[in-house]
């Protein structure tokens, strides 16, 4: 049964994961997502699961890998420098065809950085800092409710695609409180028999199986490695067909099309209202999936558009994907802040007008 409740983002993410079937969480404190391990510490055991505060993010991601290898539904979370430490583990989860739900709460960077909102981990999530050919299936919600829905679905998608699913949010979304509807509890698969039936590849001890199971973290020949990569590529090809998500508004007659997600999308929405009042027609493409990216949305941009403006809390990490989508048909510009600094809707309005002037002269 669904309930509406006022919840802090980080806590809502946990509740969504638990209801989606997560029963194993491994994490380490780091601002601005420490509420996630705290909430899981308080609630996960009562749900029949296990919480472990690991010795580091390196420990946490590898605990997650072990639990996922044995058939558990796992959630991991961290922020920017902690996600940097988890990169080898993410690549490992992918090559092992293992599911996991990852929540990345981005803060200012690079390095130790700042604790305020940022979107400068977009490239980290979608292009990866781990080695080899792999992808994190990545979603970029804009509201806490959207994050809740994507996390809930993401637990099942991770199992279906045998791959980590990453929900990338900014620090503000982790910290803010919004009224949300929580989804209903999904069935979990926890007993030996349930795991053997639901995930026959899992490492549970051979038992009555005819053969031992081996999870090939390190295949034995280049041919074996290529074969295992091709197996995972089949899932990625499927994701590119089935998991592209976005929202597009006002593209038919927009002079300016904004591309934004997360907190900047909300601020840009306000700026668009202000620009409309001044007679400047605007539209927005709001990507919801970052990998696979909704390149197809850019085909819908109408003939009146003069410029596409990416609004991001980074030096244009998503703009790289926007340019791929636009295919050189229109100029692409950037309105950005980094390091944890935010823009106001007024600043977006005035910078948009400067950009428009530059484009039309």
């Amino acid at each position, binding site marked *: 049964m669904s309930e509406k409740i006022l919840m802090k983002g980080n806590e809502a993410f946990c509740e969504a994961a638990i209801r989606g079937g997560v029963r*194993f969480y*491994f994490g380490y404190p780091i601002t601005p997502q420490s509420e996630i391990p705290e909430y899981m510490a308080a609630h996960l055991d009562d749900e029949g699961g*296990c919480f*472990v505060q*690991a*010795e*580091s993010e*390196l*420990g*946490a991601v*590898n*605990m*997650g*890998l*072990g*639990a*996922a*290898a*044995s*058939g*558990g539904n*796992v959630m991991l979370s961290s922020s920017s420098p902690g996600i940097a430490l988890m990169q*080898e*583990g993410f690549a*490992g989860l992918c090559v*092992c065809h293992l599911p996991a739900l990852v929540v990345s709460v981005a803060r200012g960077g690079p390095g130790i950085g700042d604790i305020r909102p940022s979107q400068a981990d977009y490239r980290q999530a979608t292009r990866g800092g781990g080695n080899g050919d792999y992808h994190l299936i990545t979603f970029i919600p804009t509201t806490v409710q959207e994050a809740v829905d994507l996390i809930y679905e993401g637990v099942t998608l991770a199992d279906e695609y045998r791959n980590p699913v990453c929900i990338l949010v900014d620090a503000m979304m982790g910290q803010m409180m919004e009224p949300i509807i929580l989804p209903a509890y999904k069935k979990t698969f926890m007993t*030996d028999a349930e*795991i053997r039936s639901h995930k026959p590849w899992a*490492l*549970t*001890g*051979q*038992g*009555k199986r005819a053969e*031992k*199971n*081996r*999870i*090939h*973290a*390190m295949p*034995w020949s280049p041919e074996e490695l290529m074969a295992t990569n091709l197996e995972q590529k089949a899932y990625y090809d499927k994701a590119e067909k089935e998991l592209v998500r976005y929202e597009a508004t006002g593209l038919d007659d927009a002079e300016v099309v904004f591309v934004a997600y997360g907190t900047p999308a909300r601020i840009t929405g306000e700026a668009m209202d202000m620009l409309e009042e001044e007679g400047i027609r605007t539209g927005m493409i709001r990507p919801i999936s970052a990998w696979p990216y909704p390149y197809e949305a850019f085909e819908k941009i109408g003939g009146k558009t003069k410029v596409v403006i990416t609004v991001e809390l980074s030096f244009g990490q998503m703009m790289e994907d926007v340019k791929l989508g636009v295919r050189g048909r229109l100029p692409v510009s950037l309105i950005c802040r980094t390091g944890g600094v935010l823009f106001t809707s007024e600043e977006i309005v005035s910078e948009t007008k400067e950009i428009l002037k530059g484009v039309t002269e």
Partner: protein
Amino acid sequence: MKTVFEYTKNMEEVSTSYCPGCTHGIAHRLIMEVLEEKDITDKTVGIAPVGCSIAAPRFMKIDMIESFHGRAPAVASGMRRVLPDKYIFTYQGDGDLTSIGGNEILHAAERGEKFSTFFINNAIYGMTGGQMAPTTLIGQKATTAPRGRYVEKHGMPLRMCEIISQCQCAVYVERVALDTPVHVRQAKKAIRRAFDVQEKRLGFSFVELLSTCPSNWGLPPVKAVEWLADNMIPYYPLKQFACPEEVK
């Protein structure tokens, strides 16, 4: 005709990829023999490290996974949460456990994780061709200590049993060696005690097995076991550091 010794069925038929005289072959066999004798083979999951014994899943007939360098204790900790009733062990070399994995093993011991770690200490990095390990002895040559390890530059070798036994939840900690038949028999008893500790859910069990690396020591196998006895045992004494009454 009476059977005195038959090679355990828990090892695959294929030849191992280990060098001639490498004591990994003995260590693998002892663990698999204990599983067979305790009849827990089909309830056991093993975690291989990065190192020569990343090959272990090819030779041990149990569910296994290779882990990132040093991370096996974390993988085992995660696995233990999903499999409360199974037997889990990590099998790690000295680079894996004492260098890059120092933090993971320390905290597995701190938490009293209910799995067993078998630490193969041969005082050198094997797989990558003979670099210095944290357990390389003073004066011992390695490719990254070509003039030999010396204190001023490299510090003193790490004695892991001594460190791990400081963690109160590491309830069974023993150092054994694989250089002589007497020591090999003692090593098997230690491995069995480790699995008994798991069976009784008493806490973390840790067995350090002093081992040879003939290839990277530059010694034939028979000279290598003699070198182990003459040089490693004096610095790494064979000893039971902690043992619960229930498994003595």
